[in-house]
Every structure is written in C-alpha cells, then in structure tokens.
C-alpha cells in the first residue's frame, strides 16, 4: 500500500513550509503513474494516521461537487477548528481553508489551491492536520482523549484497577473503558463523583468506586 504518491510521515515533516504559490494544487511527490494515465486523478492511499508531531482535526472522505469541495469527518471537538480562513496542513503542506459549508449536516470544505474536482481528488483519504504545538490549552476537568488513553487507574484505596483503553461518548457523560487483566473491561462514567483526580504527568487516574461500578 505504499506505491502511491502519499507523502510518508517522514516526508510530511520535512516538507517545505511555504504554502502553494499557484492555483495548481501541489503534487505530494513525483507521480510515476500520471505519465501513463494522465486523465486519472492520483488517489493517495489513506495514511495510517497523522504524521508524527501533528494532530488530526479531520479526515477527508470524498469529493463533493465540481468546484473542489471535499467531505470531511471532523476529528476535533473544537468548533472553531474548521472555519474559513483557518490555517491547517493537508498532505503535509500548510493550506488555508477557503470555505466551509454544511448543507447535509457534515462539513464540506474547500481549500485554497484546489480549484476543481480533479485537483481535490488527490486529497481523498488524507488527514487535515495541525501541529501539536498549536493545540489550545484546555480548561480544568477537560482532557485530550489521546492523553487519557494509557493512564493507570487506581481506586482511592490505592488498589490498581487497570489501564484506560478507550473513551466512549454517550451524549450524556463520557465513559472510560478500563482494560483489566483477567477480567471484563470496566466502564467508568466521567463524572465528578467517580473520577476524583487525573494526573497526566504521573499517568494516573484515581477513581471512587461506587457499588455496581466494577461488577
């Protein structure tokens, strides 16, 4: 799956920082297949995730319309992230968001430098990224999910429960899935009565066990 022209994570890191200067979309790298089939847009293989040092804020599912818009699955809880004028990275290069519309409930985004459908085709399956340093600081009691995953969970009595493996959204409160060796996963509601403290530096979460919680 590495025979296409997707920039590898390493390539993305070392990509030039300047934005594309012309209206022609940037090619990620030399595309050998385009010489034989010039009419075919180059569809990059979906990368395994954002490049090292970057954070994904969206995933480009497909193309929408003829004017270079793409369908995006948001991977960010920050409502300000996908806005017209925002600077993000696409295919490893800094790119400006020209327009965001939501005609069908999910964001449709147009990037500067991708004027038509053919140009936008190369974005299919890639991530919209930002640099990790650009992540905003969060208020108390709010954490990045990736920081929570892997925390060691102990009770207020000091008894080890397991490791946090997943965060579920329910529409009410979030639920932390705790992987327990030799036992079923425990589901912990992310509420003040149960989650007493979270120490990201020490990678430790302290919970108050209420009856029925770990059954």
């Amino acid at each position: 799956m590495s025979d296409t022209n997707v920039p590898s994570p390493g390539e993305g890191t070392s990509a030039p920082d300047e934005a594309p200067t012309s209206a022609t979309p940037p090619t990620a790298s030399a595309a050998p297949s385009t010489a034989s089939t010039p009419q075919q847009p180059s569809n990059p293989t979906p990368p395994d995730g954002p490049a090292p040092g970057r954070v994904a804020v969206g995933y480009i599912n497909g193309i929408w319309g003829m004017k270079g818009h793409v369908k995006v699955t948001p991977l960010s809880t920050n409502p300000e992230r996908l806005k017209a004028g925002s600077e993000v990275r696409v295919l490893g290069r800094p790119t400006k968001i020209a327009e965001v519309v939501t005609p069908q409930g999910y964001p449709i985004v147009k990037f500067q430098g991708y004027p038509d459908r053919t140009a936008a085709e190369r974005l299919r399956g890639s991530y919209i990224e930002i640099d990790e340093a650009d992540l905003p600081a969060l208020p108390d009691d709010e954490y990045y999910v990736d920081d929570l995953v892997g925390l060691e969970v102990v009770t207020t009595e000091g008894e080890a429960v397991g490791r946090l493996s997943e965060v579920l959204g329910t529409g009410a409160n979030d639920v932390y899935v705790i992987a327990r060796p030799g036992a079923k996963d425990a589901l912990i509601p992310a509420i003040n009565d149960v989650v007493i403290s979270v120490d990201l530096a020490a990678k430790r979460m302290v919970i108050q066990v209420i009856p029925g919680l770990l059954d």
Partner: protein
Amino acid sequence: MSRSTKKGPFVHPSLLQKVLAMQGAERREIIRTWSRASTVMPEMVGMTIGVHDGRRHIPVLCSENMVGHKLGEFAFTRTFRGHKGRSETTSRKR
C-alpha cells in the same frame, strides 16, 4: 403515533421501583437496566443508570435536560472505532 398522554410516560416497573427506593437512600449506586425504552423521569436526575447496549451496561448520569428522553438514546448500540493516530478530540468530566 405518539403514546397516549392518559397513560403517562413509560418506565419499566422494576426500574421505577429501584429509582424510588434509592431516592431516599444516602448510598448511591449504579442501577442496571435492560429497559432502553424507559423514559428518564425527574426522579432519576442525579442518579447513574447502567443502560444495556446489547453487550454491556453503559453508566449514564441523568441530568435535567435528559428528562423526557429514552434511556436507550444515551447508550449507543454501534461501535465506532475512530481513526488511527492522535486527534484533537477532548473528554470533559461532568
């Protein structure tokens, strides 16, 4: 067609019994239920109810703005595994 107002909202009798029993009690515990069709009642506000999603019980803290909704609305039955790698998703403690 919506449910007749004469009947009032549906709550499974055994769930209602447990909720009313816990209302006066000091001790808080998770009430497990398989009744996803039960309506969130004002008596449930502040209680944590384990709602079955077909596989396990998802602990849901009932709040005022959930009153009138069904419990099943807060325990999804499909699993979304998400995308690989680091994303800007956050989790807030309530």
